[in-house]
């Protein structure tokens, strides 16, 4: 059943390697403001946890001071590390719109890339979170049928651009639907 040659299957009617690859696509970066959104969001989380831990240690202060220093020290080290990583993470995020599909990639350590063809999109939506609002950014979510597993969300797009992109995707969906009928 197996053959040594590393092709997907025998006698393909098209040359698979000549099909357009998503590797050659140039990805659009997210707006630089989104880097700040990411930093704000992760620090808000850290501050929240720190305040709760602070209150907790203040209330029952029978901690050994050495142990306490270790914990606080490693906590802050972790905090700094996460912050250092954010720009790299931001750098890895990107989206691309091709003729027939939309692509989103992300992940610094665990890389992932999701591709949805326009003729499989159910609808799309533009949203805005509280941090993104400060920087005038919006996110575009593309929905597929059958629940959230294969939905695609691109955050950090300037407001007008997000609306334009949504209009573009919607027009692509209707065009695809008409083509199929």
């Amino acid at each position: 059943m197996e053959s040594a040659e590393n092709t997907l299957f025998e006698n393909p009617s098209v040359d698979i390697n000549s099909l357009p690859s998503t590797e050659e696509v140039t990805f659009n970066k997210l707006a630089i403001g989104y880097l700040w959104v990411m930093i704000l969001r992760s620090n808000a989380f850290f501050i929240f946890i720190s305040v709760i831990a602070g209150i907790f240690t203040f209330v029952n202060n029978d901690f050994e001071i050495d142990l306490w220093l270790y914990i606080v020290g490693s906590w802050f080290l972790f905090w700094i590390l996460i912050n250092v990583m954010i720009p790299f993470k931001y750098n890895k995020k990107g989206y691309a719109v091709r003729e027939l599909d939309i692509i989103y990639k992300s992940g610094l350590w665990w890389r992932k890339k999701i591709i949805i063809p326009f003729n499989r999109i159910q609808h799309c939506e533009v949203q805005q979170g509280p941090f993104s609002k400060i920087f005038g950014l919006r996110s575009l979510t593309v929905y597929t049928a059958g629940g959230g597993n294969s939905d695609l969300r691109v955050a950090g797009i300037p407001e007008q651009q997000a609306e334009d992109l949504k209009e573009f995707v919607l027009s692509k969906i209707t065009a695809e639907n008409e083509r199929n009928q």
Partner: protein
Amino acid sequence: MREISSFFTPSRQSPIAILIFLIKFLRVTVRQGWAGVISLAVFFRRVEFSEWFLYVGVIVIMALYVFFSIYSYLKFYYYLKEGEIVIKKGIFTKTTINLPFEKIQTIDFKQNLIQQIFGVVEFAIDSAGSKKQEVSLSALPLDMAEQLREYILEEKKSLISENVEDIESSAEATKAPKSILRLSVPDLLKVGITQNHIKSLGLILVFFFGLLDQVRKLTEETDLDENQFEETVNSYFEETLITWIWLFSIAFLLFVPVVVSLVTTVFKYFDMQLLLGNDGLKLKSGLLNKKQKSTTLRKIQTVSWGWNPLQYLIGFFTIKIYPATASSIKVKNILTIPGSRAEQINKLLETLGFTEKSQNLKGHRMSPLYYIRAFWIIGLIPAIIIGTILFYFFTWNALFALLWPAFILTESYIEYKKWRLLVNEHVLKIRHGLFGLHYKLIYWHKIQAIKISQSPYQRRKNLATVVCFQAGHQMRIPYISIDLARQIEQYALYQIETDKAGWM
């Protein structure tokens, strides 16, 4: 039979709906309110109200239920309008639901005992759309329900695919529903036995070991002094009596669940039939609660089949057919056939066009690094960490922790050995399994999104994991070479983007 035009004037359901509403109310009360009822009862006991107060309370509540059942029956109207079905209902807040035919995914019939006695069905409509609304009519005479469904599905088809070349036309040429599969009662008994596989087997084993132990004890007690004989016989009888009582109650406790699940299997899947009709596949079953699930052929996303070791012994497979769903897949949407033979699967696959389309499959394995990685990450490293901790408590007995990585290695090696990705230009098929063997089959063009992911380790070794998403279901292809992953992605996108047949 009624005129189709009569469906266009608002009408009520069958009056049996009152009874069904009433039972629904009672069931909800029993399910959610029993704690309240008990606490009320305790309260009354303490305050020492006279008993008639309780009775009056029950009667008042029952009267209210009857009233509301009748009232909601009277307020419930359904009718057809241009291209949609309209439902008006509501006791306190009036709601009108307009459901366009093209949003309708499936129409299922359900029958519980009462509905069966009065010859009515629950008419349940599953719909797509961002605002998911469950629409169901509790009681509709069977013939009317069938007429209505046929009409809606016919209208829907003409609305959606007015000029689309229908790929299913060949299958639809057969007018009368064709039976693909039918389960008899002996089949169901086999299904029942193979279903509570390892669990009940383990229980029975425990029971027999217990019995063996008893027998051994009895034989030991036989070499005794002659003098003591009389005395021992007496105590022996008493002891054995107690032991036997214990044994019987244990046997009872062990076998009752098996018997119960056998009986429920027979009731649940009684006279299961898989039919191929004009509007796709229909799966009927049930003795007291008759159920009917259906899907059009076009909507079918994944077909999976397989067996566990016990099913293998009697040559039975479990088949699952996953139709496209609006929200994420729910168990109730899957057409599950708990027992079928190889030739019946072949018949089904042929009906769905899979047999013809899955010739000349090329096989791919996943990377052997899959089980090596599993051995290190899930097996050895946790075992060493936990082993060193256990060493403080159990000294050298902690070496038993090393059984864990051995287990993981065997398990993931078997998984690696059995796993295959089988591909040709039409379909993707996956074979996998640990004890049993399972297959999953999809068409390339029925994929709706592709995800490629790589962990840092996979990136170093040029490996990737691909997920092919479908409407409500997904196929995961782990630990294949990045080159193969890219080919899958490129070919899938090509197939989807040039697809004209439609995927749901």
